[in-house]
């Protein structure tokens, strides 16, 4: 047997017996990966990255703030994370997480749909067939996958380079759709009664059905996302998580919702294993919520919110962005947290540094932003 053939045969046997080894070899290629996560419904940043130094907070949120005040997870400069964000807090301590406060997409009108269009297109006038992630992969000829049933705006405009994936056994409607339906049926007692009956029945279903339903939950989607990203041919992925429109009983909703986000992100990291070091995760939402809590222990549509950058090589462990203050005069239109920077300044900078886009390419991809100049990654 020729020596070359022998090596070939050996390599082939390694594929079978040593696939973890093979995976590490792949990772040494240092293929930089991006995960773009949109939180649909407008995340309340004041209940997520909390400015504990802010004397106005307790006055603005007399019932909301005390629900978390004593269990906060401390960050630097007097900020703290919501108690549900246990994994993210650990990432922060390992310098793998960068929260950015008081950001907005450039959109100030408080409509979810329009706000999400801005966040996904990153254009002055949103184009629903032209997303920023698709422009990024186009200039670098990279490949993307959206974990969704149809191509989201972020990835539209790059048909050849992007794909969608979703668990084939479709899940039941998401939890927040059911709660919206309960509101919708307030004036229709019969539909409301049927819905409640249906929900009760559903909760008693056998485990087999439950399992099928869970395929569509965020934690499982994140895990699948990690698996898909490990393919050599996939450079980035997009995930979305709804359920952030907390007009009512926000404390309980966010406690659960943030925990889902936290566990989902951890599942993604675990799945990525060593590739985590080459991964950039960007988490953002369409806008923020009112600084003041409303009459139903929730918050209404606002302006500035927070975003997160994370990954194994992120220059983390600090909170970025300028704090605008919460005085009456410091609030935007006397109601919302005022934006002090554009989300795309941070997103563009992280993409530029991670995928090495030159200035012209970055101008093409994020025409409305002026990228942050600091180092997002540790070298």
């Amino acid at each position, binding site marked *: 047997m020729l020596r070359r053939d022998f090596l070939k045969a050996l390599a082939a046997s390694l594929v079978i017996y040593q696939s973890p080894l093979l995976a590490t070899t792949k990772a040494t290629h240092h293929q930089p990966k991006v995960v773009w996560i949109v939180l*649909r*419904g*407008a995340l309340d940043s004041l209940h997520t990255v909390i400015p504990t130094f802010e004397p106005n907070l307790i006055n603005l949120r007399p019932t909301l703030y005390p629900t978390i005040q004593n269990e906060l997870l401390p960050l630097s400069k007097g900020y703290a994370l919501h108690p549900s964000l246990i994994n993210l807090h650990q990432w922060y301590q390992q310098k793998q997480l960068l929260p950015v406060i008081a950001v907005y997409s450039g959109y100030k009108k408080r409509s*979810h*749909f329009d706000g*999400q269009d801005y966040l996904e297109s990153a254009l002055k006038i949103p184009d*629903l067939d032209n997303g920023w992630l698709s422009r990024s992969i186009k200039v670098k000829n990279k490949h993307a996958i959206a974990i*969704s*049933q*149809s*191509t*989201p*705006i972020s990835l*539209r405009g790059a048909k050849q380079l992007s794909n969608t994936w979703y668990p084939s056994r*479709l899940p*039941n*409607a*998401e939890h*927040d*759709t*059911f709660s*919206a*339906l309960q*509101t*919708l*049926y*307030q*004036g*229709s007692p*019969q*539909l409301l009664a*049927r*819905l409640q*009956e*249906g929900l009760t*029945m*559903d909760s008693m279903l056998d485990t087999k059905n439950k399992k099928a339903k869970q395929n569509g939950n965020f934690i499982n989607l994140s895990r699948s996302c990690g698996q898909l990203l490990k393919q050599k041919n996939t450079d980035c992925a997009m995930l*979305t998580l*709804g*359920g*952030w*429109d907390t007009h009512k009983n926000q404390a309980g909703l966010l406690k659960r919702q943030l925990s889902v986000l936290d566990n989902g992100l951890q599942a993604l990291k675990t799945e990525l294993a060593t590739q985590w070091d080459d991964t950039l995760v960007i988490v953002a939402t369409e806008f923020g919520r009112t600084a003041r809590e409303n009459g139903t222990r929730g918050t209404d549509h606002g302006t500035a919110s927070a975003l997160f950058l994370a990954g194994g090589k992120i220059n983390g462990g600090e909170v970025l962005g300028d704090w605008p203050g919460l005085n009456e005069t410091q609030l935007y239109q006397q109601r919302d947290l005022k934006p002090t920077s554009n989300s795309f300044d941070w997103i563009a900078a992280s993409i530029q540094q991670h995928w090495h886009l030159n200035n012209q390419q970055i101008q093409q991809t994020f025409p409305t932003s002026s990228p942050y100049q600091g180092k997002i990654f540790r070298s």
Partner: protein
Amino acid sequence: MQAIQPPSNKQFTKATIAMQRFALGARPNDIKRIENIAQPWLLNQLTFKPAVEFDSTLPDSNEILIIQEKYKQAQKAFKEYAKHQPITANMSDNKDMQPPKNPNQAIYKQLTADALQQSINSFNSFNWRCLDFFSNHFSVSTQGSIMRGLAPTLEREAIAPHLFGRFEDLLLAVYQHPAMLIYLNNETSIGPSTKYAKMNKGLNENLAREILELHTLGVNSGYQQKDVTELAKGITGWSVARPGKEEKEGFVYRANKHEPGIRTLMGKSFPESGMKQGTAMIKYLANHPITARFVSTKIIQHFISDQAPEELINHLTTHWYNSNGQLSSVFQALIQHPLSWQIKQQKYKTPREYVISTYRALNIKNLSIKQVQSALSVLGEEPFKAGSPAGYSDQQQDWDGANALMARINWASQLAGRKASKRIDIETLISNTFGDTLSTHSYQVITRAESRQQALTLLLLSPEFLRR
């Protein structure tokens, strides 16, 4: 400068009601198109000839009967062939050893797909709704091999041509159609005193009973068992030609199987006159005042409300009577009566109406008929599978159960998941679908949804979209 008149809201609302309640739901621009002509638009459809148009390239009942006969022969030949073949291990690989494939399932899919496709794409969908009504009134189900192919042909061949004609002509066409004759076994019914009657071959009352109970007078309307028997005898000999064995195709009258003698139905006597005897009996039933009232009530219950208002019943019945059962007059009466135009939605959509109106609202161009058919199966109203000659229920209580609602929620949210990213502007969709009839509450909940997908899901599940 010429002052622009704001659109009359009343006309706008009327156009919306016409689209939702009388037709199969609005597609984008449909409401605007008929804004000032809602009633004339509906009335005009009554004059269409033909009332609805099917794809004429698809097989008709005669062809299906021939295909079925060939299939049966192929099956027989195969059995014979297989009997004489040595049993070998690789039989399943042998092409010659495969039994012939039943052609009826493919035919069923094609024919039902055609009706759905036309209903979804038609501007004049009032006529398609009327067709659906009578197709369900004369419900035939796909039990057994031959009915699978034949059931969808009844509405195409017997109902559609007489949709707005005289009710007696509609009845005669239905009772002379192979689908109905075979479904309710009249093709094998034999006059008991003819020489063909034997121990296990004789009178079959199935069709006669359903004519009285479901199609004309209605249950508990005063007819007796002897009326059923008399009608059954009157239509003995109404049968279907055997393809390949007879020169004729389709309906055939077999004089030698007809029960001779005078028949008495509801106290009226019908002299012996062969096939004409049964025809006279059916015409008598078609023009009976109880029939006029029974079918009018069903029409109102279908279009307007499960609790048909007495005033409207009387109105339609009078028109029925005055026009000798001319269905265009009856529908005209329905369209022109103010009680049909109440703003309050009183009808809960059946799954078929729900699915069709959804596809229309979303203006889905590259329609996957497979998805539409699977939706009807998931939501519980597969075409021609009611399994009873009474057809599918038309009443809210039979469709609005908790399970059924959950099925609609899951279906709608999946569909929204697939469609939400398309260029759908929710505000435009609302006005295209509901005109100005959406309640402020629903409007607010939908437009304040946290994502486009959720907004679309809520729109499709709003009380105003579940009802019409």
